[in-house]
């Protein structure tokens, strides 16, 4: 399961990054790290861009291509 499969309001935990070092580094520097939890806050109408709210409060937007590269596990509220 990846971020792309989530709906607005879903809580999830990041398991793995399915892309290269650059991508991982970018996310890590924004505080999107393995094991961190987040909520899906907004998704655009055509499901092109996703906004994640990290536990720390940081809001991060991902394009759908990138959303498919972040493996997650759904968490219960």
């Amino acid at each position, binding site marked *: 399961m990846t971020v792309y499969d989530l709906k607005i309001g879903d809580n999830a935990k990041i398991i793995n990054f399915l*892309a290269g*070092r*650059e*991508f*991982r*580094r*970018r*996310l*890590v*520097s*924004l*505080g*999107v*790290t*393995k094991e961190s939890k987040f909520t899906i*806050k*907004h*998704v*655009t*109408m*055509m499901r*092109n*861009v996703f*906004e994640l709210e990290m536990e*720390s*409060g*940081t*809001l*991060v*937007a*991902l*394009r759908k*291509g*990138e959303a498919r590269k972040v493996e997650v596990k759904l968490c219960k509220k």
Partner: protein
Amino acid sequence: MQEIKIAFVGQPNVGKSMLINAISKSNLKVGNFSGVTVDSTNINFEYKEYKIQITDLPGAYSLSDFTQEEKVTKDFLENEEYDLIVNVLDSTNLERNLYLTSELLMLNKRIIIVLNMIDEANKEGIDINSKQLSKILGRKVLKTSASKEIGIQELIDAIIETYNSDLKLAKIRFSDVIEEEIINIVDILSKRKFKSKLDYHVLAINLLKKDKKTIHMFHEEPIWIELHEVVKSAYEHIYIHYNNYDIDEIFEENRVAFSKGAYSETVKLTKSKKSNLTDKLDSILIHPLFGLPVFLFLIWGLFQLTFKLGQIPMDYIDSAFNLLIEMVKNSLGNGEIGSMLGDGALAGVGAVVMFLPNIIILFLGITLLETTGYMARAAFLLDGFFHKFGLHGKSFIPLVTGFGCTVPAYMATRTLKNRKDKLITLFVLGFISCSARLPIYVLFIGTFFKGYDAGNILFLIYLSGAMFSLVAAKILRKTAFKGEDEPFVMEMPKYRLPSFRLVWHSVYGQAISYLKKAGTFILLASALVWYASNYPKIDNKSVEIEQSYLGSIGKTIEPFFEPIGFNWKMSVAILTGLSAKEVVVSTLKVLYVDKDSSNGDVPDEENQGLIKALKKNISIPSAIAFLIFIMLYIPCFAAAAVFTREAGGIKYLGYLFVFTTTTAWIFSLIAYHLSKFLIT
């Protein structure tokens, strides 16, 4: 007097520039703001017996090459000379900000940690134990608020104190496995009494990180024979422990763990922290249905302001310059020098200054949208559509600005942080028809398409320009800028009220840099056009354009334009159109109608004479080809100058010239022959 060179580093949106502004303001002697581009900015001032130079480095989430700004920051920190780093952090988002700090600590420089926006943190109930943090990081930690001017004097004092103190080394705590191996390596180095400027601890970490320079250095040393074995077994130990063969990732995880640890040991939340202003605003501003209309309304408002409000001073500037030109010419007796100064130099300067109101208003708007945090939302909403054409969500602003004027549009590409995105947007922007081309379109539509609805044809022209740019972007992305897409990962900053001092500062900087760079270029170019259209002189008298250099050039290049149905007069108009698109109409007028007038800007009601002459001399297929050429070729000198600066090199202007001219020529050719075939 001692000089202290300070590098200010921080993640984006931490209030770094505002902090520097606060520091330098309280020490009024602020000087040169150099390099207004995305580069670093230098600020100099004197304090007590010190000369202090602050380098404001662009915001960076980490020390990587990911964005142009991060590259600038990383290169500066690794290669330039400086005495100390001031690391500015957002107190309300400490955990993430500490990640950059953990990277900076590994540079082994004097560092001061500044917890900025402490007032906001207090409001949100975030309690930071700065003493404890200072212990963990091994560096001085200060609390400041740039907007409330808290802790500014303390920061200046700390800078001087740290400058005069010995360099203390930070000890990032790594995991036990790594610490153990560091000790092993340090052990060997000290047993062999290895000579090095760097601390053994640092050398050990660099070796484990596979730092190229360090490995290279050790390769030359006898100690490498022994060391090599130790390092090798260290790797094996680490790899097995982490079950991971990527040493970068292992260190990264260590830094994450370090910043998490430092955060949880020093920060206490006294109330549930969320400020829900951002939540509330976002529920409307990036709402799946309402988000887009709200955005379009805001942008519509901005353009109304830019081009309607900007028109007022523009007209004043225009008439002021015309008056000035008249005065200069009269006082110098309408002679050669008068004409050169007036029609050449002053007219050129006027053409530059004229765009200034537009640029100031537009950038005021864009800066406000950026500093409040709204621009990220716009990109969020639009990225889906623009990404289909190989563009970025933020490309929208420059593209729409292009309908008004290409000069500010090129400048607006600064909001694009990724270089490829920026270059593609720059290359296709010229296809969007700017308002300066309107007079040409109106003239030709009025002349050749009398029976049709002018509005519809105009709309068609503008629409096809926009389509051209989108398709061209797609093609460029697939050819010249191909390769994997760079990941689109963007922070959505909290909404904040902008600091008006900072906004003004930024707009002022943009305006000055426009005046300087575009000004010199245009001045030269317009002087050149003036010269070419007035010389050579025969018997000290002005010749007609046909015999001037410009005329001869027109005749020389005529063969190039012949296949697409242009005569030499049209070719000359295309050439002079390079200085400004409005000039095309006046050139055609000079060439076709008033043979006696030396310059074309004598008002002539409704251009009746010109329309008749054009109708008689130009065929409809030629006219269509001409329109298409105007639509697609390089906008003007001013735009070219700004383009060169934004693209970062004159060679890009070469590419742009070839790219747009070829496109224009090919499509004009097709249109010419197609319409010829259809009409006859």
